[in-house]
């Protein structure tokens, strides 16, 4: 099923695909403009939590699907970390078989409604589209179409529950319910295993729930997927920290035969500059968790959050964009402070655009060096330094260099530090024999995601450091294949 050229070719030569290609000439297809995603008005949406992108109407999706020329060598697939058969699912949309399209997505992607929304498509599938590479035109909107098909299926009420093999009674534990853990659980339950997902928090979904805000990924979409997993037989145990509530040995004693660690990169980093522990200086994780997981901004919930009026978010990734746009929605004057320029920002391009439209100020090529507090220890000012770009560094991005004597002060009452995360240390700390790197990520065999301990597999951010949803899911699936093989072989 994976990246095999013959399979793609065989599929491409099926009658229905040949027929579609004949219906509309390639020239007619490439003449069309990429459709635009309908969006909520920036001046309205920056005051509420409704989803920004409204989704494509059926006829619009079909038109966009027609742009795809069904390439003989579909380069787009090489850009997708899980190797979705992109032309096949798009051609199903062109054929108006939307449910069929969703079924193709689900062959390789457990959460297409999520990935269609949050994948950095411009750096993945869409970057490798024929339009981008050869025609120098806007790529086919693969992400929007993926979201369309997945949403159509969910809203149709005819969501297909994937078939599961006969139960084999072998107990498997998944640690963490983020995208890596969910993808692993989905495949293992399909193979017939008795899968339990253990989650430390009181909600299932990992970053999809506590990190990414409602205006970008509504919780309901994640919940439907979780319900489907439950229908397939996956058990979920919340408020259970593996390594604390029970050890791996306790679970082995209870009959668990293999483990998948998808515990994420939870540990927020700080910059270690003066004033970082003042009141009003948060990690992005704390800020987003208070608002997303604990509903702190809703008056009838008990958890408080400091609702600042002048908010500065330090960083340029997705987390920084989510935090700054959340602050804006809570009524603050909000700005991004990022030490490189706009083009080097690691956030999804669409999020940066949306943030700009919503009235977020961008102080690029700026870096904080100190926070100053008032008499009560509450942050009131920050000192920023201006930067310029020098030669490219090891990441290939131009290195920011301090402009001497450029310091100046800015008034703030809330600072949200979003300069990256480190791997969650809970699991490595509870398993001294587990091999880790000097950054604290778990070492795995890349072929099957097996760790240095035979019955433990791992994937997602705990292996990669902060990465993406789709890579985490890809790892979960590879680990499921690896664990299945391992268990089958050790049973014989």
């Amino acid at each position, binding site marked *: 099923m994976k990246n095999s050229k013959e399979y793609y070719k065989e599929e491409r030569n099926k009658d229905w695909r040949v027929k579609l290609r004949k219906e509309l000439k390639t020239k007619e297809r490439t003449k069309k403009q990429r459709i635009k995603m309908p969006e909520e008005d920036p001046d309205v949406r920056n005051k509420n939590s409704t989803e920004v992108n409204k989704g494509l109407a059926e006829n619009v999706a079909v038109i966009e699907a027609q742009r795809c020329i069904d390439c003989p060598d579909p380069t787009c697939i090489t850009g997708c970390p899980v190797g979705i058969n992109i032309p096949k699912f798009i051609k199903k949309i062109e054929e108006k078989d939307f449910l069929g399209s969703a079924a193709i997505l689900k062959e390789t992607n457990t959460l297409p409604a999520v990935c269609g929304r949050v994948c950095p498509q411009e750096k993945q599938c869409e970057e490798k589209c024929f339009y981008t590479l050869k025609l120098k035109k806007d790529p086919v909107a693969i992400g929007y179409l993926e979201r369309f098909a997945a949403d159509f299926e969910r809203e149709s009420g005819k969501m297909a529950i994937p078939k599961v093999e006969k139960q084999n009674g072998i107990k498997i534990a998944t640690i963490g319910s983020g995208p890596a853990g969910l993808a692993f659980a989905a495949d293992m339950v399909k193979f017939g295993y008795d899968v339990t997902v253990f989650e*430390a*928090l*009181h909600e299932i979904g990992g970053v999809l729930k*506590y990190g990414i805000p409602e205006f970008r990924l509504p919780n309901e979409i994640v919940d439907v997927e979780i319900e489907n997993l439950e229908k397939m037989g996956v058990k979920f145990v*919340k*408020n*259970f*920290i593996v390594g*604390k*509530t*029970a*050890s791996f040995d*306790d679970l082995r004693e209870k009959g668990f035969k293999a483990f998948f660690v998808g515990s994420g990169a*939870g*540990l*927020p980093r*700080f910059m*270690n500059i003066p004033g*970082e*522990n003042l*009141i*009003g200086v*948060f*990690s992005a*994780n*704390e800020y987003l*968790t*208070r608002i997303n997981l*604990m*509903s702190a901004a809703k008056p*009838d*919930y*008990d*958890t*408080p959050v*400091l609702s600042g009026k002048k908010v500065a978010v330090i960083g340029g990734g997705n987390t920084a964009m989510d935090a700054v746009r959340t602050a804006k929605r809570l009524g603050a004057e909000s700005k991004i402070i990022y030490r490189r320029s706009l083009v080097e920002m690691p956030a999804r391009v669409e999020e940066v655009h949306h943030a700009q439209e919503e009235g977020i100020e961008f102080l690029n090529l700026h870096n904080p060096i100190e926070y100053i507090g008032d008499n*009560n*220890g509450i942050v009131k000012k920050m000192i920023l330094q201006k930067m310029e770009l020098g030669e490219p560094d090891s990441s290939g991005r131009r290195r920011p260099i301090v402009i001497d004597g450029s310091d100046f002060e800015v008034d703030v009452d809330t600072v949200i530090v979003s300069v990256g995360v480190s791997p*969650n*240390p*809970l699991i490595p*700390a509870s398993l001294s024999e587990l091999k880790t790197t000097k950054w604290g990520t778990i070492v795995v065999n890349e072929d099957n995601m097996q760790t240095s301990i035979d019955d433990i597999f791992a994937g997602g951010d705990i292996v990669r450091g902060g990465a993406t949803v789709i890579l985490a899911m890809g790892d979960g699936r590879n680990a499921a294949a690896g664990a299945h093989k391992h268990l089958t072989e050790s049973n014989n």
Partner: protein
Amino acid sequence: MNKIIKKVQFSENVSKIVIEAPDIAKSRKAGHFVIIRLDKKGERIPLTIAGANKEEGTITLVVQKVGVTSDKLLKLNEGDSILDVVGPLGKATHIEKVGTILAAGGGVGIAPLLPIVEAFKEAGNRVVTVLAARNKDLIILEDEIRKHSDEVIIMTDDGSYGKKGLVTHGLEEVIKNEKVDLSVAIGPAIMMKFSALTTKKYNIPTLASLNTIMVDGTGMCGACRVSVDGKIKFVCVDGPEFDAHKVDFDEMLTRLGAYKKAEIEAYNSYIK
């Protein structure tokens, strides 16, 4: 859901609550804590595990009313349930035989001190415990503490019980009389700060169990961070116990006040 099996009121604002939590009862050690959430709209608050019964699958919490959540918790009765209980969190106390332990418990800090006193005693140490509170009513768990201590000194601010004076007076009295090898202080931040200053004068290694504001308790948010020896530490995963002589208590005290305004507002609208 975790059912409340038993509730015993110690004083107007402090009660002991025994709840069902079989997995936690099995794996917890002295020094560990849990995070609870009462209901769907509730906040997550940390509480120390003051004791556990493996056979019955229960853990004991001792709770003091300070704001909305602790008040709501204390209004629950036997048979009621708490929605979420997660743990055991934090690092367990490192227990070994060192000689003489000087334990200091302030107010509701006496509850988390109990399992630590118990464990040090069991490891063969001589244990002298100083219990301190504003008045007689706030001295809790005295019988249990006596059971596991070689000597107990009680101090009250108003002299309504034991000796009149602060916890530090009790500590100095012991330190002047005998050689102390390790001190443990648990209580309000201000009490730990002054206990640490006292033991530092005599170069006695001292542990403090910090009670910062927390959200997740798993190292994910950084709300609980403190400066220890000039470095950022997360109390929920690196602690809650630290070398008291290295903790920046002033910073911790400031940070504890972060939500003071919100908490007072919440409390006022809650009692209405």
